[in-house]
C-alpha cells in the first residue's frame, strides 16, 4: 500500500507543477491590471477593431480551410495514391516551421516581388500589408490542424458503411453527404475550432506579411515595444480572456453534442 501511495503522491506533485506553470501566468495577466485600466483598454477603439479584425480574418481562413481541407482530408483517409506520404508530411510542415520563417516564405510567394503576387494584384488581391495577407498567414499555419482532425474523423468511418450506402443506390457524392460527412462531423468541428483558435493565436507569420492593418497580437506587441509591459498588459488580458472564453464555449458546445 505504501508503494501505491508514493505513486500517487509523486505523480500528483509533478502534474501540479505543470498546471501551475500554465495557470499562474494566465491568472496574473487576467488580474494584473487595475480594473479601471482594463476597462479603458476595452473601450479603446483600436483594441476593439484589431480584435474584431483578428477574429474575422481567422474565420475567413477557416472557411477556406473547410472548402479545401475537407476534400484533402477525405482523399488522404480513403485513397491510396503515389506521393500520399509526401503530401501528408507537407501538410504537417507548417506546424514545425518557425512562424517567422513561414512569414518570410509567404512574403516571398505572395509579395509584390513574385510573379504570383503580381498576378493576384492584377486581380485586385493584395497580400502584403493588407487583410488578405492576414488570412493567408493564418490559413498557412492553422490548416494542418483541420486536415489532421478531419482525416482522423473520416478514417474512423467504417468504409463498409459507405459500401452499404452504395449498394442502397447512392452515388459517391450522395454517400459523402449522407454518410461520411455527417459521421465525421464531430472531428471536423473540433478541427475547425482548433484551426480558428490557432489562427487567432498567430503572430510571427502575420507580423512579417502584414504589420498594418494590425491584428490584436500585433497591436499588443507594438504597445509592448513602444510603451512597455504596463501598456501591453491590459490588451493581453483582454485578448487572452476573449480567446479563452470563445474557445471554452465552442468546446463545451462540441462536447455537449458528443454526449447526445
Amino acid at each position, binding site marked *: 500500500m505504501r508503494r501505491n501511495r508514493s505513486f500517487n503522491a509523486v505523480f500528483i506533485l509533478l502534474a501540479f507543477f505543470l498546471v501551475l506553470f500554465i495557470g499562474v501566468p494566465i491568472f496574473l495577466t487576467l488580474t494584473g491590471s487595475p480594473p479601471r485600466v482594463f476597462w479603458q483598454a476595452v473601450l479603446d477603439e483600436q483594441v476593439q477593431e484589431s480584435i474584431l479584425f483578428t477574429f474575422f480574418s481567422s474565420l475567413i481562413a477557416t472557411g477556406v480551410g473547410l472548402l479545401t481541407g475537407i476534400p484533402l482530408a477525405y482523399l488522404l483517409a480513403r485513397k491510396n495514391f503515389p506521393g500520399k506520404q509526401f503530401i501528408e508530411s507537407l501538410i504537417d510542415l507548417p506546424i514545425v516551421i518557425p512562424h517567422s520563417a513561414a512569414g518570410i516564405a509567404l512574403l516571398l510567394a505572395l509579395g509584390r516581388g513574385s510573379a504570383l503576387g503580381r498576378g493576384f494584384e492584377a486581380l485586385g488581391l493584395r497580400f502584403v500589408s493588407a487583410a488578405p495577407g492576414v488570412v493567408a498567414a493564418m490559413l498557412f499555419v492553422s490548416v494542418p490542424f483541420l486536415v489532421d482532425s478531419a482525416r482522423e474523423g473520416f478514417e474512423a468511418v*467504417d468504409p*463498409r*458503411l459507405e*459500401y*452499404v*450506402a*452504395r*449498394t*442502397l*443506390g*447512392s*452515388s459517391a457524392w*450522395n454517400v459523402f453527404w*449522407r*454518410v461520411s460527412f*455527417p*459521421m465525421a462531423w464531430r472531428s471536423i468541428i473540433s478541427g475547425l475550432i482548433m484551426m480558428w483558435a490557432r489562427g487567432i493565436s498567430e503572430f510571427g507569420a502575420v507580423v512579417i506579411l502584414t504589420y498594418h492593418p494590425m491584428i490584436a497580437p500585433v497591436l499588443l506587441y507594438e504597445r509592448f515595444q513602444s510603451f512597455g509591459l504596463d501598456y501591453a498588459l491590459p490588451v493581453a488580458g483582454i485578448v487572452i480572456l476573449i480567446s479563452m472564453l470563445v474557445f471554452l464555449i465552442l468546446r463545451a458546445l462540441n462536447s455537449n453534442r458528443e454526449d447526445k
Partner: protein
Amino acid sequence: MTQSSHLSLRKLNISLEDFSLKNLDLEVRQGEYFVLLGPTGAGKTVLLEALAGIIPLQSGSILLEGTDITVYPPELRRVGFVYQDFALFPHLTVAGNISFGLQNSWRMADYTGDSARKKIFPLPCMRLILKGKSHQQAIKAKVEQISSLFKIRHLLERSPNSLSGGEKQRVAMARALITTPQILLLDEPLSSLDPETREGIQRELRRIHQELGTTTLHITHNFEVAAALADRIGVIMDGKIVQLGTPREIFRQPDNEKVAQFVGVRNIFRGRHFVEEDGGGILQLDGFKFASISGLKGIVRASIRPEDILLSREPLRSSARNNFKGRVVEISDRGSFSYITVRIPSLEQDGKDLNLIVLITRRSGDELALDLGQDIFAEFKASALHIF
C-alpha cells in the same frame, strides 16, 4: 432445369494480398436460398463484396437476370447487402436507416411512379429539391410496411446503437430489402448473435424468404445455420467450390475428408475397401472390419456420424451389421446431449485401438448410467458407414 439461372458467375478471378478466388463458376436460381459454406478466411466476404461491386474483379463476369453487371458501380447493381455486424448507420434512427435507399430519388421513382417527374427534372439534385410531401409520405408508408413485416415498428425512432443484435439484424434486412433488390447478399448475418437469438432470427429469415421470395446468397461458416436455411449449399474451400448440393446431400455424403470434418463428422478412418460376392462392401482397417454398402475398391476414407452409432449395456440382437464391444474412455457433457468416446480394442495382437465418438442425448446417458472405464456395446448400420 425448370428454374432459371438468376445469378451467374463465370470464371471469376479475384486476388488480394492474402487470398484469391480462382476461376469460380456458380449459378444461383431464381428465388432460391443459396448458402455458401466455408471455413473462416475462405474468402467468402470478398466474393460478396465483388458481387456488390465494391471490390474489383481480376477477370470473369457476373450476370444478374441475364444482364452483365461486371462493370456496373454498386449503386446500379440492385443488390441488397447485409454485413456480419450489420453496418447500420449510427448517425441515423432506425427509420432513417431503413428509408436510406428510398431517399435516393432516382431510385424512388421506381416506387412512387413519378417517372414523369424524372423526365422533367433529369438531374437528381433538382428532384431532391422538388421532392414534395407526397414523396415523403410514400417513403413513410413503405417503411412502415416493411417494418411490420420484420416486426420492428416499435423501434423506428430508436438509435441503432441501442438495439440488440437480433433487432439490428432485422433492421439491416429491412434496409436492404426495402429497395427490392434483385438478389440479397448476406455475410454471416447470424454469427454475431447468441444461440437463442440466432434460432429466432433463423426462423424469421425463413419466413421472410418465403414471403418475399427474394433470391438470396448467404455465406456462413456454420453448418447448422446452413442446414436450417438453405435450399442448396455450396461448400467453398481454398477459393474453390468443392461440393454443391442440398443440405442433406452434403451432410450425408461429403465429397471429401475436409468437407466431412467441416460439417461435423467426427469418426473418419482410412482403410482398404473390398466388395464381396453378394455386393456388400467390407472396409478393412488395422485389425477391424466394417460392413458397408459401397461399391468402391481400394484405399478409401470412411466416416460415421456420431449420432449414427447406438450404445447399449447388453449385446444387441439387431439388424445392424457392425457390432463392437468397447470401453468408455471419455464423456463430454453438453447440456442436453453428450459426446461419448468409446475405445474398441484391436482384434490383432499389436493393432491400434480405435476410438469411436458417439453422440447421445443426456437422457440416454442417464438411462445407460455411463461411467468412465465401463464396458459398452456400440453398433451401427452398414448404411451409416460413408465411404469416399
